[in-house]
């Protein structure tokens, strides 16, 4: 009996260690953002007194942070929608239609996600300079598809494959063409998978950095991640860490909320790739 008790205690200690490992740095970001700027170098575990000055500083008009959040939302949102539309079609074809060469096609699509961003970015930047696309949304959205589209196709293919084949068979027996079977039977039932894929694609694009950093040099077109790495701040410290932590919390909170609400779905989507 004693060994089982020790084991249970060890297990709980292990779980506590995992939670501490994952959350401690994030907690530090939160705590640092809630200190007064003059307390920036205090290392106490609880901010005392609490202050939102760092958040005021982050949203100071000179930083352009509010506008950058909108830019991030536009880029991540449009990339997600665009990629979903393409990937629903492609994923359905690969998972449900019976034709030769689907293995190699999926392999090519997945392989494109392994290409290093910089290899694609060097020539794309060259082209964007020529066609005056520097400082535009499309210059950020189109290259973002290079990683978001394979991810979405892969996830949706996995999802479509799990649905029972009898669905289309019944639809075809009832006189539907393959196209109608897709539109009227499969698509409505695929909504949860589409939603999961949307979350994953959105998080991936929201976190993107190197493309947004390279194709934009005007402040009002920068995304939140880029502008945050360039903050100079209004307080006289060599780097305005308090302001950056506050802005970092603002950028991260939507993602943390998504993770809290949809953790089961997100894990299912992520593991769909590797396991099963």
């Amino acid at each position: 009996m004693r060994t089982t008790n020790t084991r249970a205690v060890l297990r709980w200690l292990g779980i506590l260690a995992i939670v501490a490992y994952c959350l401690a740095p994030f907690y530090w970001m939160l705590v640092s953002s809630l200190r007064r700027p003059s307390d920036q170098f205090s290392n106490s575990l609880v901010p005392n007194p609490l202050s939102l000055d760092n958040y005021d500083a982050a949203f100071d008009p000179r930083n352009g942070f509010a506008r950058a959040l909108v830019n991030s939302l536009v880029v991540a949102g449009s990339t997600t929608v665009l990629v979903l539309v393409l990937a629903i079609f492609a994923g359905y074809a690969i998972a449900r239609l019976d034709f030769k060469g689907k293995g190699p096609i999926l392999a090519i699509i997945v392989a494109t996600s392994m290409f290093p961003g910089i290899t694609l970015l060097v020539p794309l930047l060259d082209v964007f300079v020529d066609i005056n696309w520097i400082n535009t949304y499309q210059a950020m959205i189109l290259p973002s598809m290079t990683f978001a589209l394979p991810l979405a196709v892969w996830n949706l293919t996995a999802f479509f494959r799990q649905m029972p084949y009898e669905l289309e068979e019944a639809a075809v027996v009832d006189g539907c063409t393959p196209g109608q079977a897709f539109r009227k039977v499969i698509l409505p039932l695929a909504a949860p998978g589409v939603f999961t894929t949307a979350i994953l694609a959105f998080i991936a694009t929201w976190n993107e950095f190197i493309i947004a950093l390279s194709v934009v040099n005007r402040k009002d077109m920068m995304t939140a991640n880029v502008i945050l790495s360039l903050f100079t701040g209004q307080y006289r410290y060599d780097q305005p860490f308090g302001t950056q932590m506050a802005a970092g919390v603002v950028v991260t909170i939507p993602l943390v909320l998504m993770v809290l609400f949809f953790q089961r779905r997100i894990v299912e989507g992520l593991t769909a790739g590797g396991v099963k």
Partner: protein
Amino acid sequence: MTAPTQTRPPAPRRRPGQAREGAHRQAAGARRRRAGIVRLAALLLSPTLLALALVVGYPVLAALRLSLTVTEEGINPETGLIERSSELGTKNYTDGFQGDTGDRFLNALWNTTTFTLATGALVTVIGVVMALIMSRAFRGRGLVRAAVLVPWAIPTVISALLWKWIFSTDGVANDILNTKILWTTEGFQAWLAVVIADTWKTAPFIGLLVLAGLQLIPAEVYEAARVDGSSAWRTFWRITLPLVKPALVVAVLFRILDLLRMFDLPFVLVGPRKESVETLSVLAWDEMSNLRFGPAAAYAMILFVYIAIVAYVFVRVLGADIIGRGVQGRK
């Protein structure tokens, strides 16, 4: 090194309405339907393939061409003006192996490799340990899972700033260690800071993927091992690890491919043009931002080939099944 082969259930080959039609009509109908399906598949796949050809296929070819375009600047002796001339050649590549540019390139190649090996090994070990701890059912599992996803969800740029703050001179890391290390300045400590920050962010993610693999192992297997008197250590090496290997190999492959192209973390945590943390991506980006597209493309192509070789080794030697699930089943 015998991995358990996954058995796939044979898929039934049925076509609806088969029994009701005559043999002739059935053959003609099947052929017509088959053509219809192929047409539909082509229609559904072409937008994606076109988009990828545009944003991936074309850039790779253009990068190859750029990397082979050598631009020389010289003063025209007749007019006295600076002129640029471009010609095809391999100078952008050979420059990576000689002189000052060679030192810088080989250093970036070395950093890329050591970051990948060190962080790859660390996240694999920590990830497996986390998965083993979480593998038993317990109350509050959903909350723990959400906590584990937090490092993964934080944008790399934000986590780089966060660690820069933690590692700053008067930061909490020096406070805890009671040291005064200048973490984010040139030197081994900067390399270590990047490894720590990346391990923090990605080990939990590996843990989740391995956990999903662990949960597929039937409980009977462990019971049988216990009946046979196998020790916990032996059970782990002989049963758990081989059975979880397919999930682990794919998770580690994707992590390693990400590590090879690492950019955000060294760029924000330490900065560009820092010898101790400059990776191939950072080097190529720096060349590009200085409008030296030729060398930038050459370095990026070398990175591309490096990644392709590593991916090939994983798929062929370790048997990473990256697409299996997407096409298996009904063919």
